[in-house]
């Protein structure tokens, strides 16, 4: 099991030379969160204070994603970066709420490293994955909602799989019947490679601990 690097479309690479897609395959699905992971989430909540949440946007990695959001036309105060969204949820609910094993693992990785990770059903996508711009008349996942032209999408060689930092095509997302998962992370300018790897390893470590 090793971390793979995806392809980036030439148009996108010219604009964002540091943009990378990294992923790792995990043998296993999601499920109920075991008590030790709930405890880890609770301890993480205790360490996460209001002051830290306020200053999050000045920390290098969350800031790098915030800048990238701006540069691709997303208002990060409207559509929050994953790290900021996790911080906001923590402040609103008083703790990081446990939902299921996968979501909890993604939250732990995002909060600990600042790097967002997403999961796909490995049996429903065909690696290698990459990042490209959507084409005219293209639909998310091949047959779902239409995509606007030149949107940045995560794709396999056949079809778009998800909008970058947005919706995942319904058919490609993780469901209770998922047996294998692709854990993906997008590296942007200012984010060290080691942090992306750490985020992916954190998710797999949490998933493996639970199984």
């Amino acid at each position, binding site marked *: 099991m090793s971390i793979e690097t995806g392809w980036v479309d030439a148009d996108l690479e010219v604009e964002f030379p540091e943009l990378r897609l990294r992923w790792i395959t995990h043998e296993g699905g999601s499920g109920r969160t075991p008590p030790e992971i709930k405890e880890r989430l609770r301890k993480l909540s205790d360490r996460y204070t209001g002051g830290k949440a306020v200053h999050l946007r000045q920390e290098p990695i969350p800031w790098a994603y915030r800048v990238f959001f*701006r540069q691709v*036309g997303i208002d990060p105060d*409207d559509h929050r970066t994953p790290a900021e969204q996790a911080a906001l949820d923590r402040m609103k609910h008083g703790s990081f709420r446990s939902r299921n094993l996968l979501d909890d693992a993604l939250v732990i990785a995002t909060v600990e490293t600042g790097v967002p990770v997403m999961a796909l059903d490995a049996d429903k996508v065909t690696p290698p994955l990459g990042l490209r711009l959507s084409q005219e008349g293209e639909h998310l996942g091949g047959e779902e909602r239409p995509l606007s032209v030149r949107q*940045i999408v995560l794709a396999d060689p056949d079809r778009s799989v998800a909008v970058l*930092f947005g919706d995942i095509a319904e058919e490609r997302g993780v469901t209770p019947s998922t047996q294998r998962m692709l854990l993906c992370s997008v590296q942007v300018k200012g984010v060290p490679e080691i942090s992306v790897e750490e985020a992916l390893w954190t998710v797999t470590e949490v998933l493996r601990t639970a199984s």
Partner: protein
Amino acid sequence: MPLVTTGPDERAARRDLLEQIARLESDLAALFCSAYPRGGFDWAVKSRGGGPRVLSLSELERLRDDLAERLHDVRRTLSDRTWVEEQNRRLIEEMMLAPEKHKWVRVGAEDIGERGCKHWHVRPRWGILGMMLNWWRVRISSGCPLAT
């Protein structure tokens, strides 16, 4: 020979604009942290719409201008607010030194840019007797009332 037409190379301009956007976002983030916990600031810089995508040169320019304008507005508002807060801090000192000259004046923590319910209130000592004899003092509240 047919004429060959080429478009202008925008790459350098685009790179500059992306750098400027990053710098402005950094300044805005620093200002956000400086302004906290004060409320009432407008931080929004509307997105271009259409989800994550490669923005055109004119869109990048507009975004850069919007960020610069927002930064300027917030800086000016924060500067005005901190000036008022400084006046209020001075007022608290004067209240402490000569409460009889500031009868019934009340300054809250929010007025000096701080969180909480603490306030400084000039009140007469011994109620009506203090009012008649001009005995005034500053009462400092201990904080927010307990939740019921």
